[in-house]
């Protein structure tokens, strides 16, 4: 048994939106260096889980606890979570009128750096850092001067989320259906970038409906979320099993157990 503090420890998490309970007792422990996949049918609560961890104001946690790097995550505001190294790649990234990617990324990075006690970066230093990141993940700088997520294709928006992740260097990255809407090549580039960003001191939670991204990013653990609970956990073989059998087995067990 490891004596270190888990990066993320979720216990019996219940959450609801507009009075409707979506999460009904989620348990999950993520250690540094690990990749977890959370799979499940549509409407199982996957995205809700991701958004609750990021602090979306529309969701109310009604029961349970979330500890992140040894502290209670739930009282923290979304920006505080981000500054503590938690990152959510959105399923539907939001367009920001008039604000270029470069300006946005620098503002976000400086907010995070300030929290870490590091000096804020000026435009020139930031461009150096950004170029290094782009080089690392093998992307060009063509959309840095374009407004955030505006006029981008679905794939470009997802790629943009991964670029943000590369710049912000989170401890825990949650990727909410980053694979959906990507063609094979785009999926490959995104998966490669995520793999390159892996380090022994960070962890990735992949929320996905499909196995295909997992053939590029091998998960250490696969969990099936259904009816707002994790109903099965296993190794990467579980994803293959799901690919074959589908989610029908759990779809029928929707009703809460207790």
């Amino acid at each position, binding site marked *: 048994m490891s004596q270190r503090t888990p990066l993320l420890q979720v216990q019996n998490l219940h959450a609801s939106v507009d009075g409707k309970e979506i999460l009904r007792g989620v348990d999950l422990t993520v250690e540094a260096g690990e990749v977890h996949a959370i799979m499940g049918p549509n409407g199982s609560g996957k995205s809700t889980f991701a958004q609750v961890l990021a602090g979306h104001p529309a969701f109310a946690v009604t029961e349970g606890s979330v500890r992140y790097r040894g502290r209670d995550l739930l009282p923290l505001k*979304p920006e505080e979570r981000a500054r503590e190294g938690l990152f959510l790649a959105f399923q539907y990234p*939001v367009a*920001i*009128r*008039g604000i270029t990617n470069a300006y*946005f990324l620098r*503002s*976000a990075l400086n907010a*995070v750096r300030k929290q870490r006690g590091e000096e804020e970066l000026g435009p020139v230093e930031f461009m150096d850092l950004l170029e290094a990141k782009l080089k690392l993940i093998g992307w060009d700088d063509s959309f840095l001067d374009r407004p955030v997520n505006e006029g981008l294709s679905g794939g470009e928006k997802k790629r943009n989320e991964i670029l943000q992740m590369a710049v912000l260097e989170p401890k825990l990255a949650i990727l909410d259906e980053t694979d959906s809407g990507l063609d094979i090549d785009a999926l490959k580039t995104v998966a490669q970038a995520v793999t390159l960003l892996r380090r022994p001191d960070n962890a990735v939670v992949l929320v996905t409906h499909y196995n295909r991204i997992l053939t590029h990013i091998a998960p250490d653990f696969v969990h099936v979320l259904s009816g707002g609970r994790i109903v099965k956990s296993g190794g990467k073989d579980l994803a293959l099993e799901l690919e074959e059998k589908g989610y029908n087995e759990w779809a029928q067990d929707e009703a809460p157990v207790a």
Partner: protein
Amino acid sequence: MTRPADVTERYVADFKAFAGNGAAGAPAWLKEIREAAIARFAELGFPSMKQEAWRFTSTAPIAETAFALSRRRTGAVTPADLQSLNSESPRSARVVFVDGSFAPELSTVADLPPGVRAGSLAAALTTAPDLTRAHLAHHAPYQASAFAALNTAFLADGAWIHVPAGTRVDRPIELVFAASATGAPTVSHPRSLVVVERGAQATVVERHVALNDAVYWTNAVTEVAIGEGARLEYYRVQNESRRAYHVATTHTTQGRDSVLSFHPITLGAGLSRHDIYTALRGSGAHLVLNGFYLLRGQQHADHHTVIDHAQPHCTSHEFFNGILGEQAHGVFTGRIIVRPGAQRTDSKQTNNNLLLSAEARADSQPQLEIYADDVKCTHGSTMGPLDEMALYYLRSRGLSPEMAAGMLTYGFAAEILGRMEHPDLRSELDQVIRARLADRSPGGRRA
């Protein structure tokens, strides 16, 4: 309440006095135009909110104020008074008007290429009689507009810019209209004429500034003629006193394959109305109409735009963004006419309004009149508070709620600023707007 007839009679009486002395020396043809214009003004009277084009803007505060025609007061303004204007950025000429009158002692010419003129229209009536006569009152017809008619009746001076064919002016030509009024309400009617001939290129910035927080009225008309293949980038920054009234008409006419980028920026005046008529008169002409308004307190600004596609293969891209705080009211009308035969017209229009308070208000009216069948026309307008999802998205990246709100708000300006080509002017306006947005005082009067 003053009866409408009394109001117009006052201006007719003022006109008689003006025609008797102040207008001395004007050529006969101009005198005729003035006479016709005052007669037209008397017929039209001030617009009423019952008229479609004025349904959101009341001119009663202007009609009911007894404005005296402003007079030239030599020495009333010193160069030091104009220091607040960004004087760092290089320009080729600065032409200054104080309360509507040319102020040669404040005007400077740095490096105008040979043949290029930037100065007083009154002087140009003598020095360039044929050219001024060919253009003046030809682009801005006064028959349809009471304000243009009144300006034409009192037409005495304003800016004159002439860029001869094939000439390129690299640095901006700056026109400054400064209001120095302090006492009883006065009105000025600056009339400007900008002629950029075939194949010429220029950048112009027209500024309206106030030296005091006084009640006055500026009733400006600017006519802009752009020749075949010419390129003009025109900035207009209206930063009048918060108690001032500002009514302006800008008429542009473009020849074949010409390019005009027009950036009207509205920051000042308590009540303002800007009529913008752009006529695409030659095929292949390209227009970018890129406007922005930032209003606070009780400010009311009405932008009334008409884009007239008269020839085929022209493009017009119109963008107006507004940021409205406190009880401010922004009005936008975007009329696009595609005349028969104007095939392959490519026209798009957007008007986005950010409402920073529950009491702020925006009215937006697209009006498309399309009489050709092979055209691409799109339009869209939005109004509302800051997007909650966007705020959350920015916060999820580490930005505080204040930073997130500030960034989203600034984005409405940045989108417009991003289309400005001149780096110095863009960065100057960027600073002005950022300072305004950062000003949290009631009414935002500090910045």
